[in-house]
């Protein structure tokens, strides 16, 4: 801050507002989610309560998955003995870690780079996203595509949740609604993503030659302005859906059946 030639103002910031509030809240909420998701991912139990499968464990691909939870088969086989969630969580985790919004959130709140606008950061050196490991943030579009596949799987989970615990179709419970909201929020989060905006049309130089892609780009741009909101809501949605399924699986209460 006190580089030669600059005004000699020793204070790291002169901001008098509560600039520290947002990063503090971000740390608390994100850390809470990380602690909860880590515990649930390693727990390896209480993730299926027929017909609901927790989004943290979907798709369940190992032979060790509880009966009824392996609608996509068990290609991983029986050699795998750890929690089945650990096989798949790298994809949604990677999508969120490389997301442009979450990058802003954790660079500011966890790394203090910067902690607030016009607030001095604590680091002496800064290379940004120019070298390993942060240059890997450029892989966001691949995680976005993986995220779309996961959204399709979670949508399938919602469809098969329109059954009763005995597997008969045409039924719905509160769990179905919880999974439906969670999957919908995930779709909004994915489709409002900056990589999605670029792929559908942002990379074009001439919108006039691609009217359909221009229309899609316009729609995604509209969603993109609320990307941060979808990022948070979808995070809460997934956590709540998992928690609801855990409660059912652990027999803490029974599902409310609508029909």
């Amino acid at each position, binding site marked *: *801050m006190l*580089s*030669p*030639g*600059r*005004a*000699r*103002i020793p204070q790291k*910031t*002169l*901001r*008098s*507002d509560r600039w520290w509030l947002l990063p503090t809240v971000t740390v608390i909420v994100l850390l809470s989610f990380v602690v909860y998701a880590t515990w649930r991912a390693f727990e390896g139990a209480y993730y299926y309560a027929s017909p609901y499968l927790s989004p943290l464990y979907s798709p369940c691909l190992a032979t060790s998955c509880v009966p009824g939870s392996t609608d996509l088969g068990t290609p991983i086989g029986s050699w795998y003995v750890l929690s089945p969630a650990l096989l798949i969580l790298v994809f949604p985790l990677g999508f969120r870690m490389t997301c*442009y919004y979450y*990058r*802003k959130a954790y*660079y*500011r709140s966890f790394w203090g*780079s*910067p902690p607030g*606008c*016009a*607030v*001095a*950061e604590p*680091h002496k*050196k*800064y*290379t*940004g*996203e*120019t070298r390993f490991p*942060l*240059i890997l943030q*450029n*892989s966001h*579009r691949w995680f976005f595509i993986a995220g779309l596949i996961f959204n399709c799987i979670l949508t399938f989970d919602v469809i098969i949740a329109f059954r009763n615990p005995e597997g008969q179709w045409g039924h719905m419970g509160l769990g179905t609604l919880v999974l439906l909201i969670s999957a919908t929020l995930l779709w909004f989060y994915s489709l409002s993503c*900056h*990589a999605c*905006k*670029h792929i559908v049309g*942002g*990379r074009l*130089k*001439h*919108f*006039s030659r691609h009217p359909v892609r*221009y229309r899609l780009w316009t729609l995604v741009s509209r969603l*993109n*302005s609320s990307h941060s909101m979808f990022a948070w809501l979808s995070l809460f949605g997934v956590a709540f859906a998992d928690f609801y399924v855990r409660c059912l699986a652990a027999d803490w209460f029974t599902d409310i059946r609508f029909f």
Partner: protein
Amino acid sequence: MTYDATFRVWRGDDEEGEFADYTVPVNEGEVVLDIIHRIQATQQPDLAVRWNCKAGKCGSCSAEVNGKPRLLCMTRMSTFLDTETITVTPLRTFPIIKDLVTDVSFNYEKARKVPSFTPPPGLEPGDYRMQQIDVERSQEFRKCIECFLCQNTCHVLRDHEENKPKFSGPRFLMRIAELDMHPLDTLDRKKAAQDEHGLGYCNITKCCTEVCPEHIKITDNALIPLKERVIDEKYDPLLALGRVFRKDKAKKG
């Protein structure tokens, strides 16, 4: 309604400086620049401040008010409490000249390094024809008044003087994005954006967007799309493979 406000204004030059306190009358409807002018007129005639249009369009009166980068002429006194002490300091990223005036020539040097608009060969000014939907995306960036508040706030420059040679800052990366999106511009600016203007240093923390007095969505509409374009060019193996095939086809064709 008139009341007496307490101002703390940084006074000094590149060798020394300190805060000076002033009690100044404030009238209804005034902005911070009015009060700085009143201090200049009634108490400190040698107080240096750069200003011009007083309408938020020339970008001259950039400074920091209570630690926030702002235009002095667009910061209304009614946004502060009557009892509040208002601190006014110069931009902290650029060398100081005197009091609230800084030397922003860093920005002009960076501007010179961005190649200007390059239309297709043989297309003369006056013959440019393009569709509105092709240009409206980059027209947002033309609202820039070059107040350099974004450059001042960006922590890559503000907190790391050593990054100045390698990083051009949000204003000029936005200029590159504007030209790269322009339907008639023929230069490929992506490689230069990353290698010469330091786009990789940007960690998209959006402070440039937060302080922009023209409300340009610098990060979402310019910097991130530019990062995605650079990824197309440098970090996407599938697209790179596609380019190789296209080149092969063109050679055979």
